[in-house]
């Protein structure tokens, strides 16, 4: 009899554990840790030093020193990346808000990248060509597109993996940039 009681108790026990997990997950969301967010070890660290050729011929190299003095968004993109198309139209809003917009063209043929930008428009202030993806490794690029918001001192303050949506830009990115511009 007692053994049977124990078996009938099992479902409740499993359920209690399950609810514990679910409740804790909700608490994490309340703290701002969304399930699709991949934490970056790069947050609050200085931007890795880099010097990359510009995608546009005749323009000087893009170097990390340029990032000091203004709030910058580094956007890692590629012409082969389908989600990059999703965020592409919204990048102009970021530039409009006075953020210096640097694109890192990641593991991409420069010709294809240029064709892509000719078709969809070029919202970037500077575009660096990271043809072999070495700088991407320094940044810890995980999936394209990826975006890094960098403060005036050149410290990474925010990172997003995946396309920026208008909600991300209006509710997270721009308020944070305004804060950093103070």
């Amino acid at each position, binding site marked *: 009899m007692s053994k049977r009681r124990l078996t009938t*108790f099992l*479902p*409740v026990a499993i359920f*209690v554990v399950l609810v514990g997990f679910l409740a804790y*997950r*909700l608490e*994490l969301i309340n703290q701002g840790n969304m*399930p*699709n967010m991949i*934490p970056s070890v790069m947050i609050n660290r200085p931007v890795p030093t880099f010097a990359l050729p510009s995608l546009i011929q005749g323009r000087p190299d893009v170097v990390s020193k340029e990032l000091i003095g203004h709030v910058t968004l580094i956007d890692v993109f590629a012409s082969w990346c389908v989600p990059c198309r999703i965020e592409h139209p919204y990048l102009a809003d970021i530039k409009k808000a006075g953020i210096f917009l640097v694109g890192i063209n990641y593991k991409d043929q420069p010709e294809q990248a240029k064709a892509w930008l000719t078709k969809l428009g070029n919202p970037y202030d500077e575009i660096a060509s990271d043809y072999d993806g070495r700088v991407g490794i320094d940044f810890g690029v995980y999936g394209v597109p990826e975006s890094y918001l960098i403060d005036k001192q050149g410290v990474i303050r925010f990172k997003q993996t995946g396309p920026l949506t208008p909600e991300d830009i209006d509710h997270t990115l721009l308020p944070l940039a305004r804060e950093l511009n103070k």
Partner: protein
Amino acid sequence: MIPEIGHFALILALFVALTQAVFPLIGAARGNQAWMDLSRPASAAQFLLVAIAFGALTWCYITSDFSVLNVVQNSHTNKPMLYKIAGVWGNHEGSMLLWIFILALYGVTVSIFGSNLPPALRARTLAVQAMIAFGFILFVLLTSNPFLRLDPAPTNGEGLNPLLQDPGLAFHPPFLYLGYVGFSMAFSFAIAALIEGRVDAAWARWVRPWTLAAWCFLTFGIAMGSWWAYYTLGWGGWWYWDPVENASFMPWLAGTALLHSSLVVERRDTLKSWTILLTIIAFSFSLLGTFLVRSGALTSVHSFASDPARGVFILALLVAVTGGSLTLFTLRAHTLKGGGLFAPVSREGSLMINNILLSAAAGTVLLGTLYPLFMDVLNLGKVSVGPPFFNAVFIPLMVPVAALMSVGPVLSWKRANLWTALRGLKFAGLAALVVVILTWVIATGPSALWTGAGLGLATWLLVGTLTTFVTRLIPTRISLLEFFHRSLAIPRSFYGMTLAHAGLAIVIVGIVGSTSWKTEKIQVMHFGDTINVAGYELTLKGVEEGVRGPNYIASRATFIATKNGHFVATLNPEKRMYEMPPRPTTNAAIHTNFIGDLYAVIGDPDEKGGYVTRLYYNPLVPWIFIGAAIMAFGGFVSLTDRRYLIGIPKRNKETLLSKSEQG
């Protein structure tokens, strides 16, 4: 004015539900007939009030009343009428209102058709149903009110997500909810039975139609969702093991197990506490799915706007409903005395194995769906669980289920002879063997071994099911008149089972065929180019830009498909850009001959006048949807069985015997 009427009706419904939850329960405990009978007018009133609320919101959508926030966020004047109406449940608030509407609908149906139920059982069942309704109405009123006004009203709305502007998806949620919510009825019956401490054959017979109805709708709803994903996402796939898909599949698995275990309760008066537990689990899975989809606890390709506050409320509901019922189960399960004993090889035995496997499958899907959440909470990193896991674990569990489905129905109750049963299925075994060998001879490639095995399994199930049916219908040489008599005398539930099992066999053929023999061609095509796809020649004739739809502009491609020089079809895949909200969608063009689908998708142009095109030949995919529809239809046929329609169910002779055996 109309939105306020709706809001007010919903508040009244909340109090009616509270009344219906409390008084009939007290009445049943005290034997007070008047208090018990309160449940019937109360459930009618609750339904009427919720219907008014639902009608009010629908009215706001039809008339595009942009003083209502919910309408502004999800509708637009230039949207076709069908999608204005579908917009009612195309968002979180409205879909919860639909949930409550269906809940009330089930309640009032029990009250109308349940005149043969014992008054105490009916009162308790409707009281439990009202408790659920109370929780959900409170949820809508406090966190998700669809009737909120907006002042000043904008001149137009923001429009509905274009992916949802599709006939398949317009009707997908109502069917899905008829399924999800339908399990609440079986749940309420189970709780009522636990309170009474009595589960018997009669109880099983009363619950079965509700479980069956829920299962049919859910089967149909899932198939519809899968079909929608197949033709709108443009990837040529039909199932992605996405958390939202899994959320609907888990209750289906539990519900399927429940349908089979309740048969044992009905016929043999045993497996009672297990059946009760399954009833609780099936509805809890529905609630868990609601939680996962709406709380933002998991990422999915198609989830609602998530809000942790709503998540907390649904979690609280889940704790109250599932936690409460499982506790009650722990306290009361021992009062449910098991009845008839049975040998391992018997109908009961086969149904038990079916239950173990289906439950394990449901558990697997649950684990796979929640695993990323567990890892995240334990701070072990972000992971995602994809099709490889599900295929590796789920398929081995389902293969024995399908194999056993041929054998189970020919085994006799209590004790069966496996050898006799298998001898009756020798034709099915032979047919399966022929199919396996034929496939191995004809098919090539690395997966031919598995393809043959899969098709063999489907043949075994299909032929086995049909043989059993024919043997029952025509046991010996009979005259035409006798044949008609027999065909009428065989219970509808037997026809239903035959259809459902045969339907699954057809689904399996579709799954195996489409995974093994799919052809996929991705390339850049210029006008006039021809690509050969699985024996068809597809020629890109042209792309017409700027084709205007009611609320979108499309680029429409024209492909001419020929086979051996003969014209087969014209395919017009589109890329649409919707105006409100401005989002692109891909509309695949599909030509089907019911054996396979030619499936064409037009992509982006390159600068040199070429277009990226994706062309597929998806063999046997239509069989998946046809098979699922047959399964659902089988369920509906079973629903018309006489034994659910007549007044007092007959006491089973066997049940009485086995009771006296046990003393």
